């Protein structure tokens, strides 16, 4: 397992801290363009994820890739997370993973 370039758990707010670096996020799919997805982050803000989304995507999708701005991610890996997802728990994880417990993740 290659742990050299870990992806940080982010929501919209935390994304700006990792511009240019590897991130992972769960997005609720709002609009699917074929080449990108407009989605809602777990803290209720809009993000754009570019790449090759799965066909068809489920309501929630996890993306792993490089943050290319504070509002968009260039995704390399896409995973369907189904239609039921506990958004608030994921959001709490993002906060913990970047706050007091950052040393456990990055």
């Amino acid at each position, binding site marked *: 397992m290659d742990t050299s370039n870990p992806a940080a758990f982010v929501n919209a707010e935390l994304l700006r801290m990792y511009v240019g670096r590897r991130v992972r996020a769960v997005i609720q799919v709002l609009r699917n363009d074929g080449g990108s997805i407009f989605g809602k982050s777990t803290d209720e803000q809009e993000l754009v994820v570019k790449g090759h989304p799965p066909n068809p995507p489920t309501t929630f999708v996890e993306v792993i890739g490089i943050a290319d701005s504070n509002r968009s991610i260039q995704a390399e890996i896409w995973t369907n997370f189904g239609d039921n997802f*506990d958004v608030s*728990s994921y959001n709490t994880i993002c906060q913990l993973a970047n706050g007091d417990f950052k040393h456990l993740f990055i």
Partner: protein
Amino acid sequence: MPVNLTANAIAAINGGDVNAKPLVQVLDIKLIGSSQERYRFLLSDAVATQHAMLATQLNDRVKTGRVRKGSVIQLIEYICSTVQNRKIIVVLNMETIILDCDVIGNPRVSEFDLLPEKPLSSGPQPSVNNSVAGAQNSSRTSYNNVKTSSSLNQGGNIQSFRPTVQPPYQPPPNYKNHGAIMRNEAPARIIPIAALNPYQGRWAIKARVTAKGDLRRYNNARGDGKVFSFDLLDSDGGEIRVTCFNAVVDRFYDTIEVGKVYVISKGSLKPAQKNFNHLKNEWEIFLETTSSVDLCPDEDTSIPKQQFSFRPISEIANAESNSILDIIGVVVTVNPSVPIMRKNGMETQRRILNLKDQSGLTVELTLWGDFCNREGQQLHDMVEAGIFPILAVKAGKVNDFSGKSIGTISATQLFINPDSAEAAGLRNWFDRGGKDTASHSITKEAILGGMKNETRKCLTQIKDEGLGRSDKADWIAVKATVSFIKTDSFCYTACPLMIGDRQCNKKVTKSGNSAWLCDRCNQEFEECDYRYLLQVQIQDYSGMTWVTAFQEAGEEIFGCSAKELYVWKNEMQDDLKYLEVVQNCLFREFIFKLKIKEEIYGDEQKLKITVVKADKLNYSEESRFLFDSISKRHMATY
């Protein structure tokens, strides 16, 4: 200020005068008695001294300090008996005249009055004999004749004198050889049941029969015999059981009737047998052929018909299993009577009903045998008609099989709509809304796991915290993964017949070629039920343990019924399907609700862990639980 004590009071009492109501002084008070608290006074009439036992109903006079050493008291009701050649006075009623007073006169106290106390039954101490130089007193007549030769000051050095013996005290000629006292024919005084003890001389009690047991025949090494018992209640609330054997049964069995008042005397007093006798008395009366039992025809209203000490249902939840108690409640449901096979092969009836009281709790009452057809049927008909009667239970037994419930025993008595303050209170409460308040049963509670959220623990905590070692089982929740299941035997053949509202579920045996036989229901049938009985190994981050899982948990773990699994394995030879199901359940995580209890198997202690429930993980809830744990721990480190 110095008052005159009644002259020669001690001699008079010893002589048999129990009517004089003398003034005497209490020189000493000692607490004696192993199982029952008894106070022993040393009484003086300014010249002579005598020990006296205080009747237990007066115990709190000493405890509250209303009588102390030095008090001058008037004896109101008292008797004098001879125990092992000593005269002992028993004070049944007294009044304190002067609370504190210097020692009046110059009473002669014998050496062994001042030795450390011993219970009456042990008699004079051997050390006294040794120190009495040259005076061998092998037969003591009345001990108060052992006088001191030197003068004795109360607070002084008492070891220095030697007692000498004087000629035995002769009662004044009036009382010699004739008279009612000597022949012991005078009617005995009526004393409270609470004052009865084996050291009592002659006694008589007046009490009402509250219960009459059945005539029982028995057979032991000495041959055949018969016995019956009845319970008595007197006007002070004292209760005692009376037992008669063999010929005595014939004398009294027909005379004794429940509810009637009798004067009973000349029985012997022995320790009560706590296994059968649940009355609050350490003694039991055994009647002989010489005993007397006289019916009191006039109605004695000072003696209650029954005495109860009702416990509210909320207290039953904490009561000790197998303890005996009285309860009262409104009958809210009555189930039909069902036949039950007992261990000895005899069949009996069982009926379950529910009682509710002002605590808002309900408890199951199980009626056995005749109670089902008598009171049980009556209650059933009343509830069917929409009447919810009050039921008082005397001497019910607490059972902790499933939560707490009450069962009848042979000594139980049931009273429908009794005439008592508690019954009236219950009726009032129920009719004014108690009927509609939510009921919570203390009987079903334990099975459902009590509170919704058991304490979450990890597996090694079971051993570390010594769970299951106390009297009650411990209930916890753990999040763990199934790592292994013993599959050679994962279910048993169970009886599908219904007993009342529950399935029998007893293990059945093969009878003949195709039928199954259930011992409890005593019936045969073609198809049996299959129920899970699993030994499962579960693991979490801390460790692992073996647990036993039954039907419900088994179905949750495997995802199919025991019968289906049995069929796949054994009958359809569909090993693949069977293996697939078994493989699938391995390494699945559950929240297990566990019941942990240490039990004795033969001569070793084994920790028995049972799965009460196996719940699939709800990830949302679990996440929140984990966040909570994290924040708690995190706070702790700061």
